[in-house]
């Protein structure tokens, strides 16, 4: 391998290994165990890259991440169902940092009806 190629490859490899493996998308930032939260939606930001609900539960303000519009629609959720004031139960995985009140939802339960955002995930 030419000297420059070798130097650049090693340099970039070292940089890649040194960078922290923080991830926002996907599930790597979440805790392993399932988690459930029931509360009232106080704010809803729906749309790409993914929807974000603010949910008041047990006097705590939680951030619940839901799907992109197509995923919510596929699950049977409409924007009107996720409007402020709605009572919901969100099931999924919470942020790996126990201080962070953030939940990434796999399923949303409204009025006893379950809406599955990730049918392939248990």
């Amino acid at each position, binding site marked *: 391998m030419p000297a420059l190629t070798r130097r650049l490859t090693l340099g970039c490899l070292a940089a890649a290994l040194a960078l922290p493996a923080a991830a*926002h998308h996907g599930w790597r930032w979440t805790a392993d165990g399932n988690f459930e939260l029931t509360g009232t939606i106080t704010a809803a930001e729906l*749309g*790409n*890259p993914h929807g974000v609900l603010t949910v008041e539960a047990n006097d705590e303000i939680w951030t619940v991440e839901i799907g992109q519009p197509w995923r919510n629609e596929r699950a049977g959720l409409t924007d009107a169902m996720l409007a402020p004031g709605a009572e919901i139960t969100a099931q999924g995985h919470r942020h790996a940092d126990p201080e962070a009140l953030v939940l990434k939802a796999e399923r949303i339960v409204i009025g006893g009806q379950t809406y599955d955002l990730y049918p392939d995930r248990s």
Partner: protein
Amino acid sequence: MTEAFAALEATALAQHLKAARWTYPLVNAGHVAGLALLVGAIVPMNLRRLGWVPGPDPAAVVGFLRPFAVAGLVLAAGCGALLFATQASDYAANGWFRLKIALLAVALVNAARHLGGMPSRRGAALSLALWPLVLLSGRMIGYS
């Protein structure tokens, strides 16, 4: 200003992107491709200009790579403007976004000073530092 951002979010194009299944990730990919082209041209160009890597005549390297950097910038900025429109108020209030735009402004002024000719050593070093910082601060928006 707040109203301008709200008006931007209310445009048909922004509304479409916010709800679209394919267009939004496509525009997102365009933004990334633009960055890849831009930084991919800027890094070797400046390394050669500074004499830190061996290679062809620095003036030839700069002349050859500059059009690619400009094309990458245009693609990244165009797609970036579309992504901004979907959540203009949020982005405008985001600290990382503001830092990115400030760094971008400095990088553009630096680039404009030696457009058409060879960059000074200082200009090349600045370019080599600034563009990756623009990328980094932009990426941090998703983690804030």
